[in-house]
C-alpha cells in the first residue's frame, strides 16, 4: 500500500537522521565494554537491528544516544549472562564524602595514551560511569536507568571514578618524571 510505504520511508528517514550518525559512538562503547573488535561489531549490529525494530517506541525529544546505549547494555548483559560472566556486585561504595579534599589539577604533558592507560586502571564500575557521563554525555538520570542503580550511586561512582583517574594520572606523571602543575 502506498501509504504504508511512505510511512516506512518516513520512519527510516528519522532513524537515519537520529540513530545512524551514532553508530561510531555505539561501537566505541561496545568495544570499551568487551575489548574485542568482532564482538563489538556483533553488539553494534544487534543494537541497531533491535533499535530499528522498536524505533516506534523511541520519542524524538529524548536522547537517542542514551536509548541506543541502553539497548547495547541490555544485549551485552544477556551475552555475558550466557557466558557466565555477569556477577551481581554488592553496592558498597560510600556516598560522596562529607569532607571533599582539594584535588590537584592533572599534570601537564600527559598524552592521550597516558589518559587511556589510566582510565583502564580504574575499576570498571567506576570508569563506566565516568565514560557514560563525561564521554558519552549521558545525564545522571539516563546513566542510573541504564545501569539500574539509584542516581545517588551514579554520583558517588562518578566522583570516585574521577578521583581514581586523577590518582592514576598523577602516578603516571611521577613514573615518567613529569612535574605536576597543581
Amino acid at each position, binding site marked *: *500500500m*502506498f501509504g*504504508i*510505504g511512505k510511512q*516506512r*520511508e518516513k*520512519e*527510516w*528517514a528519522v*532513524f*537515519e*537522521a537520529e540513530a*545512524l*550518525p551514532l*553508530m*561510531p*559512538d555505539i*561501537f*566505541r562503547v561496545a*568495544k*570499551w565494554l568487551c575489548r574485542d*573488535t568482532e564482538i563489538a*561489531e556483533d553488539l*553494534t*549490529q544487534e543494537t*541497531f*537491528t533491535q533499535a*530499528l525494530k522498536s524505533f516506534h517506541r523511541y520519542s524524538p525529544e529524548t536522547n537517542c544516544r542514551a536509548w541506543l546505549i541502553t539497548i547495547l547494555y541490555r544485549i551485552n548483559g544477556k551475552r555475558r549472562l550466557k557466558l557466565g560472566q555477569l556477577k551481581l556486585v554488592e553496592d558498597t561504595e560510600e556516598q*560522596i564524602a562529607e*569532607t*571533599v*579534599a*582539594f*584535588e*590537584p*589539577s*592533572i599534570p601537564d604533558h*600527559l598524552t*592521550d*595514551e597516558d*589518559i*587511556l592507560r589510566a*582510565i583502564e586502571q580504574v575499576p570498571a564500575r567506576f570508569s563506566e560511569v*565516568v*565514560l557514560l*557521563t*563525561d*564521554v558519552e*554525555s549521558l*545525564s*545522571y538520570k539516563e546513566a542510573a536507568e541504564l545501569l539500574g542503580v539509584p542516581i545517588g550511586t551514579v*554520583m558517588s561512582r*562518578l*566522583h570516585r571514578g*574521577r578521583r581514581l*583517574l*586523577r590518582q592514576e*594520572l598523577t602516578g603516571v606523571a611521577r613514573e615518567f618524571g613529569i612535574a605536576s602543575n*597543581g
Partner: protein
Amino acid sequence: MDCHEFRRLTDSYLNDELLVETNHDVLRHLENCRDCRAQLEGQRELRFRLRNAVVSAANLQIDTSFASRLQSDLRQTALRPGIWEQLTAGGFGGLRSAALSLACLLVIAIGGFFILGPLNERSAANNDVNQRGQNDTIVEANRARLADAVKVAWNELSSQAVGDHKNCAVKFNLDDRPIPLDEAVRQYGPLNKDIDKAVFEAAKTAFDDDRSAPIKLVEAHVCIFGGRRFTHIVLSRHGKVISVLVTDTDLPAESDSTVTDRIYGASNAAGFSIGTHAIFVVSDMEPAENIQVARAILPVMRRHLETAGA
C-alpha cells in the same frame, strides 16, 4: 556558598546537573574564589582531555566498511515491505478486501486454467508482473546507492570544513593567505558582504540564557583549504574557537535545512545546506552547543543568501 560546599557540588556543576539557583550560587562563589576556579578548571580540563582521548583512540574507531555494510542492511530491512503489505499491495484497503481479492484471483486463475485460455497467456502475464517487480527493485536499489553516495560526499565536505577550521582558525597553517571580506565581496560576489555581522548577531542568540560567557567575533575572511573555498567567520566563546564556514556545493543536501552533526576527534561539525550552499559550524564545544549555534544561524543565513541573490 563556601569552598567546602562548592567542592561537594563540583561534579554535578560540571555535568550541568544543578538547579538554576544552585548554579547561580556556584557562579557567584567562583567569581570570588581563585582556588575553586583553579580546581574547576583542572577538573574541566581532565574531562575534556579524557573525552578527546577516548573519542580519537585508534582502537575504538568503527571500521568504515562494516559501518556502511550495516547501514545498507538496515536500510534494506527498514524499507522491505512486510508479507501483509505485499499481499495487499495495489490499492486494497483492509483484511476483508484483501481476502476478497485473493479469492477473486484464485477463481480467475482456476477459471483461466480450465476454461478461458491457454496456459502460456497466464505465464506471460506473470512474467510481466515479475519484470515490473524487478524494475522496482532496481530503481529502489539505485535510489539507495545515490543516497549513500550523497552521504559520503556530504561527509567529505564536512571533514574538509573541519580541516579548514583546524588549519586556519586554530593552527594558522594555510598555504594561501586568507582574503579579507571586503576584497572577497569584489572577487566572489555579494554573499560575503556583511556576512560576518549577520552570523555574529545570530550566534549571540544561541546562548541568550547564559550571558556569563558572551560569544565574540574574532575575524572573518575567505580562505582555501583542500582546494575548496570557504567564507570563514571565526568566533570564540569560553576561550574556544568556533568556525562558521560557508562553501558552494552542488550536492543535494542530506536533508535540506536540517542540522546534522558529526564528531571528528575533539571537533564537532554541525552542518546544513541552503540551496547551493553548505554551512558548517565547527568547534571543540559540546555537540549540543555546536548544534545550538547552527540552529541559531540557519534562518539568518537563509535570509542573507536570499538577499545576496546567492
